[in-house]
């Protein structure tokens, strides 16, 4: 089953710089949560801290708790490698490995650990993952071609297939459509709606229509000034955030008055 995420009193730092402050947020299992807010408000930073990709940047640290079904992913003895296998990530720009074929890209994460409990052959996993990413029909005849030979939208779906091939519980998506054209964007949005049956999904987006189309819940982030930490202003069901927000800042943002 997919997992619930509870973020408690989370501060995220780059060295001494506090980038995100005091976030408390619950993301229910099998739901889509959208992070929205103006540029630089820390929503991508927060997203990257949920699978411990944040700490890949030298000097970057977090304080507080992020619980995955009650287990703190920043707890002692927690292996970030296992966290990242459990919480998959799709990036802003499609990033298939350029020297690998479509097939090799899908199984790239899988090859790291031979999971003996899985009896499926690699071929089956490639097929099911690509089907899961709505890409199978388009690429089934050219699995040996380089991943980079696909169009941008297809590459992004390939990256989603690569992420779900390792069977994560949660999928993080960092503006997955910002580098794509409208048709590819629609394909990804359709896919997100399908994927939430199996995964908990958190998506960062600049596009409020997109948040409205794909997410169940929305969290709005803002900064009071440049150089100040990002804070979560408000969260709730997406329909409420967009129609009757509690906070004036949220209303200004969703009505397009700034940002």
């Amino acid at each position: 089953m997919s997992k619930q995420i509870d973020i408690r009193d989370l501060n995220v730092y780059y060295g001494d710089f506090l980038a995100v402050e005091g976030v408390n947020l619950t993301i229910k299992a099998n739901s889509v949560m959208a992070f929205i807010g103006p540029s630089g408000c820390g929503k991508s930073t927060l997203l990257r801290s949920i699978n411990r990709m944040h700490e890949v940047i030298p000097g970057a640290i977090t304080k507080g708790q992020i619980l995955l079904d009650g287990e703190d992913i920043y707890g002692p003895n927690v292996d970030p490698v296992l966290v990242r296998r459990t919480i998959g990530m799709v990036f802003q720009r499609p990033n298939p490995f350029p020297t690998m074929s479509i097939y090799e890209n899908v199984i790239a994460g899988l090859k790291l650990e031979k999971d003996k409990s899985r009896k499926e052959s690699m071929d089956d996993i490639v097929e099911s993952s690509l089907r899961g990413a709505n890409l199978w029909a388009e690429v089934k005849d050219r699995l040996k071609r380089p991943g980079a030979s696909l169009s941008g939208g297809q590459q992004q779906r390939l990256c989603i297939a690569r992420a779900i091939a390792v069977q994560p519980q949660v999928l993080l998506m960092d503006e997955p459509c910002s580098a794509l054209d409208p048709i590819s964007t629609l394909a990804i949005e359709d896919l997100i709606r399908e994927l939430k049956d199996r995964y908990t999904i958190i998506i960062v987006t600049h596009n409020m229509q997109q948040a409205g189309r794909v997410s169940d819940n929305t969290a709005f982030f803002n900064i009071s000034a440049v150089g100040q930490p990002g804070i979560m202003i408000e969260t709730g069901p997406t329909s409420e955030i967009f129609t009757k927000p509690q906070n004036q800042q949220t209303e200004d943002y969703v009505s397009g008055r700034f940002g």
Partner: protein
Amino acid sequence: MATITQPPTQEQPLDPDGIAGSSVRRGDRTFLGLSTGSGIFVLVLMAGIAVFLIWQSIPAFTENTANPLTEQSWLPDADPPVFGFAVLFFGTIVTSIIAMLLAVPIGYGIALFIAFYAPARVASILGFLVDLLAAVPSIIFGLWGLYYFMPYVVPAAEWLSQYLGWIPLFANDPEIWTKSILMAGLVLAIMILPTVSAISREVFLQVPRMHVEAALALGATRWEMIRMAVFPFSRPGMISAAMLGLGRALGETIAVALVLSAVFEINWQITAPGGNSFAANIALKWGEAGDVGRSALIASGLVLFFITLIVNMTARWVISRRKDFSGAN
């Protein structure tokens, strides 16, 4: 869909023809002529090196009474002149192979350390220190190798011979341990280390961050990330770095001349002296050479020139091909 594959825009500042062609200004024409001439000068120089070396080695080749590829002695000033490059090929190639076997993996390791392991704050300082190694003149490597490094290499060679002597390569029948082929290979390894590490470091730093992050986000350890995202992307550059290091090892003169015994014979036992290198042989024999002797040394320089030319051209060709698969970048 053109979001990912950027059009291959070659960065060309301006249209030179539009300016140079339509312009009647003497200044522009003179300037274009001077700069083009300087560029062409490089080609002329390379051709000139080949032409003059060929021309001056003709006497040696016509006087030589032995097969220059197989003959194992070097008596060009004898009557009749007898010389061949076999020993030089052997010495040059074997010392370079030893140097490569050590310097290439270590050089990659240093580059990985600076690019992915060292704390960001000290990485550039550490890179500078390794570059400093490249600034040490080769004669100082030779001097240090001869008086300070060799006393440590001799026991190492004796150890190799004692425990691995059943492998013919490590046996030592002459029982001479100083100025061995191994010694020359070790000094060369240290000397080409900065070449290998500096170029592979550049290549590693060019690996797009998004590929690194893609691997880490799939749950790769740091080493798995390097194997998954860094090595495949960097392979041409790494090959090129190794070959440029090889080019340097093949042509190194003074350090080899100081630490490798000038015994002119082929001995496969690398813990003992045997063989000499093209470059070192020229430096050692130049002073005492007569007319045919000089011509023979020039001929050996010509061979060395072509060997390094091929190695360097291959290295450049390999790295220039990397543009073909840069992929989503």
